[in-house]
């Protein structure tokens, strides 16, 4: 997918940065709604395993039993409690998606800032490589490598993260380019401050809001990708409880026992909508701040 809304370079003076980006974003209603939705799903995923009535792998009734008795949402394809599997099935997805996002945004930030600061041939090479990388849709990249090794969680996370790299690098480079031209960077260069200190001390703080927006956007995509790969059977392996896997295991009985599909689908939907609303709030707050400078 592409990133559309967040084109302008975002820069803040130190004073404006004091009032944090998140606090400014929370002034908008949609950010608050998004945060509430995200926290709801996070609470289900992380507290759920402690309140689940059964073990997620325990057989309690015949397969696809209707709701009732010990199983308020019925049983799944093997006769396990749908509610307990739902409560246990979100944790891994969220942790894997966060690791992949940190990896992708971190690497993309390094590549993007290096490209902007060095300009010249390194910039050219890095950006052309990024163009070629776009020819691999993220899911195809992951499938290519998983086809060799079989389902491996570390490889899945690595491939989702690396898949983000080219686009994050491009956005970060765009933002950093305008900072590199500023007087304070020139001043720092002229008094002989080392390059990496200029990168870390002058350039990174000035693109922090764009990094925050990029993190939110990539987290939303990571959740979808990790859940999608697990839906394809390439994530957590049975008998583990996992939302993506649950959808796959139970979709043949959508008419008989819909809850085993509806619960995980809704959880993924609410989580991605939540993170995207927060991201949109952050993007708007960041752009507003930028306009404030120019005015």
């Amino acid at each position, binding site marked *: 997918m592409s990133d559309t809304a967040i084109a302008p370079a975002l820069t803040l003076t130190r004073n404006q940065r004091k009032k944090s980006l998140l606090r400014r974003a929370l002034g908008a209603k949609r950010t608050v709604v998004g945060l509430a939705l995200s926290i709801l799903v996070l609470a289900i995923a992380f507290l759920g395993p402690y309140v689940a009535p059964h073990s997620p792998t325990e057989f309690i009734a015949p397969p696809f039993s209707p709701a009732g008795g010990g199983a308020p949402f019925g049983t799944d394809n093997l006769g396990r409690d749908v509610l307990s599997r739902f409560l246990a099935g979100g944790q891994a997805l969220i942790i894997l998606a966060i690791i992949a996002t940190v990896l992708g945004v971190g690497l993309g930030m390094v590549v993007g800032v290096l490209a902007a600061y060095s300009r010249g041939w390194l910039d050219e090479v890095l950006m052309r490589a990024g163009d070629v990388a776009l020819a691999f849709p993220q899911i195809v990249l992951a499938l290519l490598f998983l086809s060799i090794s079989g389902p491996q969680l570390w490889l899945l996370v690595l491939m989702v993260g690396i898949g983000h790299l080219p686009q994050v690098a491009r956005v970060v480079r765009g933002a950093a380019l305008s900072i590199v031209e500023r007087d304070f960077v020139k001043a720092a260069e002229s008094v002989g401050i080392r390059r990496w200190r200029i990168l870390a001390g002058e350039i990174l703080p000035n693109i922090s809001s764009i990094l925050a927006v990029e993190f939110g956007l990539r987290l939303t995509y990571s959740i979808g990708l990790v859940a999608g790969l697990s839906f394809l*059977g390439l994530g957590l392996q049975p008998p583990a409880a996992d939302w993506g896997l649950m959808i796959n295991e139970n979709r043949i009985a959508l008419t008989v026992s819909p809850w085993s599909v509806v619960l995980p689908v809704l959880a993924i939907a609410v989580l991605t909508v939540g993170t995207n609303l927060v991201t949109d709030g952050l993007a708007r707050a960041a752009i507003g701040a930028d306009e404030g400078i120019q005015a």
Partner: protein
Amino acid sequence: MAKPVGMRRLVVRRSVYGIVTLWVVSSVVFLATQALPGDAAQAILGREATPERLAALREQLHLGGSLPEQYIAWLNNLVTFNLGTSLASREPVVQVIGSTVLNSSILMLCAAVIAIPLSVAFGAWIALKKNTIVDSVASVVTLVLAALPEFVIGVLLVLLLSTGFLHIFPAVFVLSPGQPVWSKPAQLVLPVLTLVLAVSPYIVRIMRATMLEVLESQYVQQARLKGLPERTVIWRHAMPNSIGPVAQVVSLQLAWLIGGVVLVEYLFRFPGIGFQLVDAVTNRDLPVVQALVIVIALFYVVVNFFADVVTLAANPKVRTAQ
């Protein structure tokens, strides 16, 4: 003054660019599947494989010889469309993927033909309705749709239109052998609709933003001051100038569509490249995986090429710039 660069030169430049992209992609596929440490044949067949079968598979995957020799053999086979034999069906790969490539092309074409004009028109319309209730509802709806993973949209549509509330469209694709996919239009509805809903939000948003920018521009103001009717201002002046930037996003979305079909085809059991790719990955059918990844990259290069040409043709500034 910048000397105008002919369209022909740009087309040639873009073609070279596409070929380089394909070469890099094929090299990555080679490195990923042939040159990984360890024995690919052993990994595929498992520990119980007999030495004869291992030897046969190594031969088939061109695992003999040094790395450069293998690489040359790989490129040579690609250029001559000798994509090897499927490990699962034991038929030539070209034959195995031929019909699925066609089916996926039809699926993507249907989605693109519906999604692009509709979302461009819708984006322009809500730009004209700026700051009204229509605008804010559309803003929230596109934000929600943009967030949802495509397979989640698909499952929700199945619940709404197929098994849950309404029972209008079939939830999975069923074809008897030899039947073309377009012989069952009702079965095509849900996969196409899923893809349309997944790609449209981005196009709607960029079209709205571009249109707003164009409507503020001096030449639109000028056209209004001349007393042209609003209809002419929008259709003759504003719309054509919005196409350039939108074409870039459309091309990114089409490129995304090629990845998006994987999950959507798997969900609906649609007999296309995505469904086949997942199947081949699960069965470790390496020659089929390699071929499909390269076909997907080829799709991307072709789509990108046309998007670039449209962008250039739509914008005389770009067309004539150095």
